[in-house]
């Protein structure tokens, strides 16, 4: 069932050469004392300038894969190359080039937001100006508030700013909009899109389908430690989707609903219905990425 596609054309165009940031081949990992492998033979490429989504239910292996790519878990099997170099052989300068946004709040609770960022800023050679970033995510007015007094959403936004502190070329995002209200979720998603437009590469793990669908150039479905499929969201929907047209019409006494395959809209039956009934509404039904996920993987994202 495992398939891969080449990095998408948009990413290649955006960066000219379309060089690979990561090449992952046959990655396997088992946590110490665990019976099951967390990641089982995962292979994929991450191209310069693309947003690559890693989608799967809790415990599927997506966070573990990210932790391996960012060097937190090292005793893995398989080969990982970062810009052509074996990940195992890279020094700490690797971390000058990447930014990591964790799913859980990562901050010293008794320091203010500014003090937190100031501490982390001093660990890098090149750093971004904190003020515009904090202003963008709406935290500048609360910069002198202790992080322990922040709401969950504010901590999530601070996490995101911290990940951008060192002006990384590659950004790892783990559920970056989890816990955010729609307005702040939109702000963060726009910032991710802007980051990519400026040439950045993003590895995004999430179980929020709309984020993946909206942001990602390519997406990998992972379940039980294995990648089931990799492709663009559009291609996945085309390949696995079931396109329909639902017509709601008024019968003599009540409202009826009839659903046709998209291909059937040119058939006489469909036109007869339009001609002979009072149409209440017509909706095209497009398969969601979640439907595709369930179809391909055989389980729901939340289960």
């Amino acid at each position, binding site marked *: 069932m495992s398939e891969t596609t080449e990095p998408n054309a948009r990413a290649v165009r955006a960066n000219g050469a379309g060089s690979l940031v990561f090449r992952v081949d046959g990655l396997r990992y088992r*946590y*110490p004392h665990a019976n099951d492998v*967390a990641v089982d033979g995962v292979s994929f490429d991450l191209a310069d300038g693309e947003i690559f989504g890693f989608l799967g239910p809790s*415990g599927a292996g997506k*966070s*573990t894969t990210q*932790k391996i790519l*960012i*060097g*937190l*878990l*090292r005793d893995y099997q398989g080969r990982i190359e970062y810009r052509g170099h074996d990940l195992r052989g890279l*020094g*700490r*300068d690797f*971390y*000058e080039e*990447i930014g*990591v946004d*964790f799913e*859980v*709040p*990562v*901050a*010293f*609770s*008794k*320091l203010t937001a500014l*003090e937190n960022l100031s*501490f*982390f800023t*001093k*660990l*890098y*050679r090149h750093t971004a100006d904190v003020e515009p970033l904090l202003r963008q995510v709406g935290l500048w007015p609360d910069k002198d508030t202790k992080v322990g007094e922040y709401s969950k959403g504010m901590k999530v936004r601070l996490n995101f700013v*911290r990940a951008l502190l*060192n002006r990384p070329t590659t950004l790892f995002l783990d559920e970056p909009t989890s816990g955010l209200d729609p307005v702040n979720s939109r702000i963060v998603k726009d910032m991710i899109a802007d980051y990519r437009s400026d040439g950045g590469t993003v590895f995004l793990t999430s179980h929020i389908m709309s984020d993946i669908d909206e942001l990602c150039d390519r997406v990998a479905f992972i379940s039980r430690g294995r990648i089931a499929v990799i492709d663009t969201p559009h291609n996945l929907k085309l390949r696995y989707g079931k396109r329909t047209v639902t017509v709601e019409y008024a019968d003599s006494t009540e409202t009826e609903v009839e659903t046709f395959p998209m291909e059937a809209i040119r058939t006489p039956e469909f036109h007869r219905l339009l001609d002979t009934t009072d149409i209440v509404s017509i909706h095209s039904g497009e398969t969601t990425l979640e439907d595709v996920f369930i179809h391909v993987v055989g389980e729901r994202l939340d289960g």
Partner: protein
Amino acid sequence: MSSFTSWVNASMGRRLPALVVGDWQRFRRYHLLAANLLLLTVWVLATLALTNDQLRQFIPFVLLMDSTVMNMGLIGTAIFYEKQEHTIDAILTSPVGPDEYLCAKALTAMLNSLVNLVFITAAIWLLKGATLSRWVDLPPAIIVVAGLHALVGIALTYGAKDFTAVMLRSIVYMFVIWFPGVFTLFGLIPDTVVPYLLVLPPVSAARMLAAAFSPVPSWQVAFGYAYLLLLCAVLYAGVVKPGFHRYVVRAVGV
């Protein structure tokens, strides 16, 4: 070689001081320094009831306690908070390497104990008018003792599931290993037995600190320095550094 030089420059010039200052700032903000200072103040006030002869035993005891078990507690608590608040994840995905991280913890402990040494001796001078002719012997001893016990604190914290477990491990260390050091300071262990107990780090530490206050055979002081420095190297290379990776996997594991 050039990458090593650049690592040393980056580490010594920027990251290590930043880590130490950061640790110190958090000691202050998490009220660990205040708790430490409060305890020291209690001990210093207790000296009001003591004669100068008794001070010769009591001050080394306070210094021993501060540079050993207090440091273990401070470092253990700091690491525990970093794990609880997941800031260790962010530090480990920055250019900071395990050596820098661990060195920073040891340096912070040394710095804290040196500041406390100044506080204690200044307070005694102010309260009791007592001065110490061999004060300069104390900072090097404090640095070695505090550095070793910072490493002990890190090692004890690694495998602990929660803060209670950290405290329990520290208490076991105190009762089994630390108290003989205290007993030597108060003359509760015969001088003929003391050389056999020097293998216990707090006993060697107690002799190094006591040497600034009363006569201690110079070979015992020399042994103490050599032994504790060797222990630092062995503990770091054999326990603390190898255990760090296992700790990271547990701390960030899902």
